[in-house]
């Protein structure tokens, strides 16, 4: 650090004597902030469709299909979310499938992560490979192989909630394992040793030290699993049978008329997740402050 100080002074003095001082400092400012500016531009780009969805949720379409232009302001779409036939049923199914799949994937995946990080046994690298494979499998392959299995086992008449949960748990599982594993691998095991030294038994150590420390990783994994599951179209398209999840409903609407209420749901999804993440951030700061 000390060596950079003289250079800083040097560059700071130079513009003062130079006639082109303002331009130089502008260039310098730009050089310092160019990455930040690019980053913000990229962020703005990712928000373009969100702004579009938000605006169109207040649209009063004249035609029956609502994808086109903004024609008039209305709040009707917000008060009649459930009006399009099947929309709310599809949301209900999606929420239910995602909750069950998230719980299953988080529990199974966390156990696996603990086994892989905390215990040594033969076949660990094989296990790692088996966990990695589903992530290296394109979704269309996973969906089609599951459908082929369900058909050949003869349960294709029963496609629906159960097969959706099975499929969603499957593709969430690997993501949960890697997320929790990353958290566990970075944890300081001396804290657990200290607890044991202070006569905590294995269960107490786990409940009071290990689990709270691993919690941020587990929560992050569960949130990831939920969002992957809730937004999944490709695998669901193969395994849903006659049931309709929200993404399948959107896809179906694209072919027929497109109810403007879909934009309302999109906006609500954005707002709810945004609030969730902000709340999590506040909770994290409080916790960090309390620990200090």
């Amino acid at each position: 650090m000390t060596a950079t100080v003289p250079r800083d002074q040097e560059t700071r003095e130079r513009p003062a004597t130079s006639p082109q001082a303002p331009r130089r400092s502008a260039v310098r400012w730009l050089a310092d902030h160019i990455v930040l500016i690019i980053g913000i531009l990229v962020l703005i780009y990712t928000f373009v469709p969100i702004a579009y969805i938000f605006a169109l949720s207040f649209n009063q379409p004249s035609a029956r299909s609502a994808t086109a232009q903004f024609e008039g302001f209305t709040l009707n779409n917000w008060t009649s979310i459930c009006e399009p036939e099947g929309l709310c049923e599809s949301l209900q199914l999606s929420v239910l499938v995602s909750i069950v799949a998230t719980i299953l994937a988080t529990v199974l995946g966390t156990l696996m992560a603990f086994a892989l990080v905390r215990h040594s046994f033969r076949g660990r690298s094989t296990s790692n490979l088996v966990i990695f494979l589903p992530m290296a499998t394109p979704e269309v392959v996973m969906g089609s192989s599951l459908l082929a299995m369900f058909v050949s086992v003869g349960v294709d008449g029963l496609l629906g909630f159960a097969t959706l949960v099975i499929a969603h748990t499957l593709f969430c599982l690997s993501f949960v394992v890697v997320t929790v594993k990353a958290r566990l691998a970075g944890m300081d095991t001396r804290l657990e040793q200290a607890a044991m030294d202070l006569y905590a038994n294995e269960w107490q150590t786990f409940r009071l030290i290990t689990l709270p420390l691993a919690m941020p990783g587990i929560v992050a994994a569960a949130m990831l699993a939920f969002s992957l599951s809730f937004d999944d179209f490709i695998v669901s398209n193969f395994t849903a049978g006659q049931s309709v999840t929200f993404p399948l409903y959107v896809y179906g609407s694209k072919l027929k008329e497109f109810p403007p209420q879909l934009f309302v749901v999109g906006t609500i999804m954005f707002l709810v997740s945004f609030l969730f993440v902000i709340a999590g951030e506040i909770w994290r700061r409080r916790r960090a402050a309390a620990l200090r």
Partner: protein
Amino acid sequence: MTSGLDTATEPSGPVVDGETSKRRGWGWLLLVPGMLWLAVFFLFPTVQLFFTSLYDPSGSYEQGYTMTWHFANYVDAVRDTWDLFARSFVYAGIATAVCLALGYPLAYAIAFKAGRWKHFMLVLVIAPFFTSFLLRTLSWRTILADQGPVVDFLQTILILPEDGRLLATPVAVIAGLVYNFMPFMTLPIYASLDKVDHRLIEAAGDLYASPFTGFRKVTLPLSMPGVVSGTLLTFIPASGDYINAELLGTPNQYMIGNRIQSAFLTEHNYPLAASLSLILMAIVVVMVVFYVRRTGTEDLL
């Protein structure tokens, strides 16, 4: 999501009293339920898919198929669809490169330049992606439409000819892939950059490295695990995707995913669909293994 594939297999906790922090014994039992799930619903269907791919292609969905070990299915599949495979990997490759070009500066800005806005910016990276990706892709379809604002603007500044269009072109499909898989690139890179010890970068500066040299010799190599995870997490789903090609392109831009989907769900041609799926999976796995070896990040697997 912040971690991606970025995992260390060994715990970094120090060894105390010469005793390893790993316990032997019955800990592996924790692995059993999850492994059973993967075996029954992933490995078994994949093996079965292999058998399906060898069925007699003259059978049909209604009459059923007979197993004839018909390896020629693979030859037929490749002969009929090699152009779709080529297009898929070209589109996915370009999309991955663009994602890297956009995602790396964003991740870098968040990790090093955002200051106290760091977590807020991170939230902004993730937030758009909680809205249904189909809705977002359909929005792009309208935004990029022939009468839409983007085409108008590009025609005004003469980048696009008067009759030029974006929708239904490869550009739109690739842009859609870039958009949809961006966080899978940004977040692992951010996770790697965030771990970089700032003192190393300062040390490079102290040793008279220019900021650019410092970045090239210190920051970039240290962020490689994130770059590798990010490119994999982008490239793999992008190569199998068929939604962007369907919504933003025409059959002329269709990728292998479109073909597999229609072979399975519309034509019920299971042998063809199964052999296409397995070829896709095999190519992806081979590419991943080769890539990971090349970049020397085997720990990721």
